[in-house]
């Protein structure tokens, strides 16, 4: 910084005056100098500002440039999220029963494939493989190895032992790819519900698993959803009860010489299906192929409890009686005319034997009088009968979460004549599945509200629309109880559990028209305990035939009823139901013995 110059320095002015010069010149000179100084300062400041701006711009461009270089020079990579949330799981979710026991899971195995170009000695390899896998033929293998293609699948999934043996062949052209295999550890237990799975799209490192039937097909998308994170699908089935039911049913079917059997055990309040069995059954681990010829209903794949619709016979009578009671047309002890035979539209309706000219409504059910039931149906009328059966869900598929139910549509006459009303009142002329029947019984007996059968675990009772009043529901249960104590189902008594139920024996319809002679479908629809209904059990035997007490027996009272009783004897304790004979007043109960 230069020293500030005075505009009129005294020394120079005096000097100038002495020599006669104008002192103003000095002042002007100094003013000019001062201006020059100020200008220099301004220029300096401007220059430094320019430099500053230049540097900022340089830094900015340098940053952009460096970043661009870094981006150009680095590998593309997803931003790393430092969260520890569990990664989405790619495997198909397990299926478990109501207590968490595994019904379906995945097992990691290996698939076997070949790259023929890498084979050192195709002939030896083929011979070795044919020995390890007896169902692979030597010729077929050789054709595969020498066809010129560079890749071929040999097996979908092989066991660790087989893998080791293939490995021991020492062929570099035989390769393994990891495979998730769907495993049903319980074998045939609950096979019809679970359905089965197969491989979909295959790649070397993994393969899709697709559900083909049952729950696996119904919930295919949910089970495969990676966002599910492996959370298992919980069913309402109880594995122990299911196994016991299947065991007893199989024994019963063999003993009664039946060609097929089905059982449905259902909670009346929640609508949960605790057990659903259909025989003959199959192993879902090796699902058989559908039949190519003949009736699919005879295939083991066919779910008789859920897919099959049958005329179930007298088990429907309780619906007619309950509706008559609900409409206040009769009381349980109202006498009904049962003189037969009853002629109607050219048909004769008869009873199994003559039950006398008059019976009370209760006795009509207990003795299973067709004529008495028809009389009740006549009082009710066609329209109201249809409405009532519809309200019980007997006209639509059940809606249970198993894929096959969609096709199980009940069959009923399109033209509903008076004769239809009469025969349907005792269960002929309408075909429903055993599951339909179980759901309708549950709706009738749980206090009178509609339940929808479900295969998924739920804790709360269903609160459906009202079908009958609580009073009628209780009367119906007591009537069913009397069928066991005094009527056609006397073999159904199980000590400790007040079993109530209704038998039904219907002639099987001939596909060519009419009905077969002596080929029956015997059904027992039961409820226990009858004084406080908790569970409904429907047992159906297809063409049972047994010689008992020196006579050939086919009707439900001799065939389905004892099987159902044995099922209740086995299943009720497993369900944690305390038998009645134990005094409930005593405080210390072993009611949790089944847990």
């Amino acid at each position, binding site marked *: 910084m230069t020293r500030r110059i005075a505009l009129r320095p005294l020394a120079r002015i005096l000097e100038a005056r002495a020599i006669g010069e104008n002192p103003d010149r000095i002042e002007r000179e100094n003013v000019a100098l001062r201006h020059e100084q100020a200008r220099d300062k301004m220029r300096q400041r401007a220059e430094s500002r320019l430099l500053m701006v230049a540097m900022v711009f340089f830094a900015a461009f340098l940053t952009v440039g460096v970043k661009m270089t870094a981006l150009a020079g680095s590998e593309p990579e997803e931003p790393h999220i430092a969260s520890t949330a569990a990664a989405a799981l790619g495997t198909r979710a397990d299926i478990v029963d109501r207590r968490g026991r595994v019904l379906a899971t995945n097992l990691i195995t290996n698939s076997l494939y070949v790259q023929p170009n890498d084979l050192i000695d195709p002939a030896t390899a083929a011979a070795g493989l044919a020995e390890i896998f007896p169902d692979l033929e030597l010729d077929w293998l050789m054709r595969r190895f020498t066809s010129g293609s560079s890749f071929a699948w040999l097996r979908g999934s092989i066991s660790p032992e087989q893998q080791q043996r293939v490995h021991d062949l020492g062929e570099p052209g035989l390769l393994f790819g990891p495979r998730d295999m769907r495993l049903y*550890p319980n074998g045939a237990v609950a096979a019809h519900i679970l359905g089965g799975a197969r491989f979909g799209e295959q790649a070397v490192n993994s393969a899709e698993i697709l559900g083909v039937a049952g729950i696996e097909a119904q919930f295919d998308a949910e089970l495969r959803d990676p966002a599910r994170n492996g959370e298992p699908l919980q069913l309402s089935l109880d594995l122990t009860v299911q196994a016991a039911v299947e065991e007893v049913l199989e024994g019963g079917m063999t003993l009664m010489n039946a060609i097929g059997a089905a059982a449905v055990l259902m909670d009346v309040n929640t609508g949960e299906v605790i057990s659903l069995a259909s025989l003959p059954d199959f192993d879902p681990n090796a699902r058989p192929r559908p039949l190519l010829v003949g009736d699919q209903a005879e295939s083991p794949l066919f779910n008789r409890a859920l897919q099959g619709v049958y005329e179930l016979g007298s088990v429907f009578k309780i619906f007619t009686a309950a509706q008559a009671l609900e409409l206040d047309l009769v009381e349980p002890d109202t006498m009904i005319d049962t003189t037969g035979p009853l002629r109607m539209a050219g048909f004769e309706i008869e009873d199994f034997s003559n039950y006398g000219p008059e019976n009370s409504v209760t006795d009509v059910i207990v003795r299973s009088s067709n004529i008495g039931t028809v009389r009740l149906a006549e009082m009710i009328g066609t329209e109201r009968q249809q409405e009532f059966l519809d309200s019980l869900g007997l006209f639509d598929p059940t809606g249970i979460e198993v894929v096959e139910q969609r096709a199980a549509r009940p069959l009923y006459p399109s033209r509903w004549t008076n004769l239809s009303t009469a025969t349907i009142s005792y269960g002929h002329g309408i075909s429903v599945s055993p599951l339909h029947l179980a759901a309708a019984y549950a709706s009738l007996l749980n206090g009178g509200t509609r339940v929808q059968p479900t295969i998924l675990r739920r804790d709360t009772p269903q609160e459906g629309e009202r079908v009958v009043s609580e009073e009628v529901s209780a009367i119906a249960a007591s009537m069913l109880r009397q069928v066991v104590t005094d009527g056609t189902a006397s073999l159904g008594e*199980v000590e400790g559990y007040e079993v109530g139920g209704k038998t039904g024996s219907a002639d099987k319809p001939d596909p060519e028209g009419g009905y077969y002679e002596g080929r029956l479908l015997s059904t027992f629809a039961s409820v226990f305990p009858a004084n406080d209904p908790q569970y409904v059990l429907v047992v159906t035997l297809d063409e049972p035939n047994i010689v008992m007490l020196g006579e050939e027996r086919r009707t439900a009272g001799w065939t389905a009823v004892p099987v159902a009783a044995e099922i209740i004897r086995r299943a009720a*304790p497993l369900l944690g139901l305390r038998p009645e004979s134990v005094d409930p007043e005593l405080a210390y109960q072993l009611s949790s*013995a089944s847990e």
Partner: protein
Amino acid sequence: MRGFVTFLAAFAVVALGYWAYHQNILTQQSLREVDRLQREIGLERENLGVLRAEWAYLNRPDRLRELVDLNFDRLGLLPMSPSQFAVMDEVVWRPESLPEAAAPSEPENILFSASETEEPL
């Protein structure tokens, strides 16, 4: 004074830079560790799945039924029936004081205790 402040600021910048760099390295290490653990969890989960499948397979009702039949002489297991329900008053309790220990010459006992004590920890 002014020089000291400048030095202090410079030192602070270096120190903070070092700290930030160090944290960065630590974070990267942790992320690698998390990755490794996730992989391990995945593998363990796979193993767990296999074990669970094996457990379910070994506990399948058919096999248990067969085992019960095979060992009927020793175990005498029967299906549960309504008659097996009882009230607590009917249960015979073990006496309060334990009876004298079983004679040590019983072979099962020796085997059992031996295998238990010899188990390496």
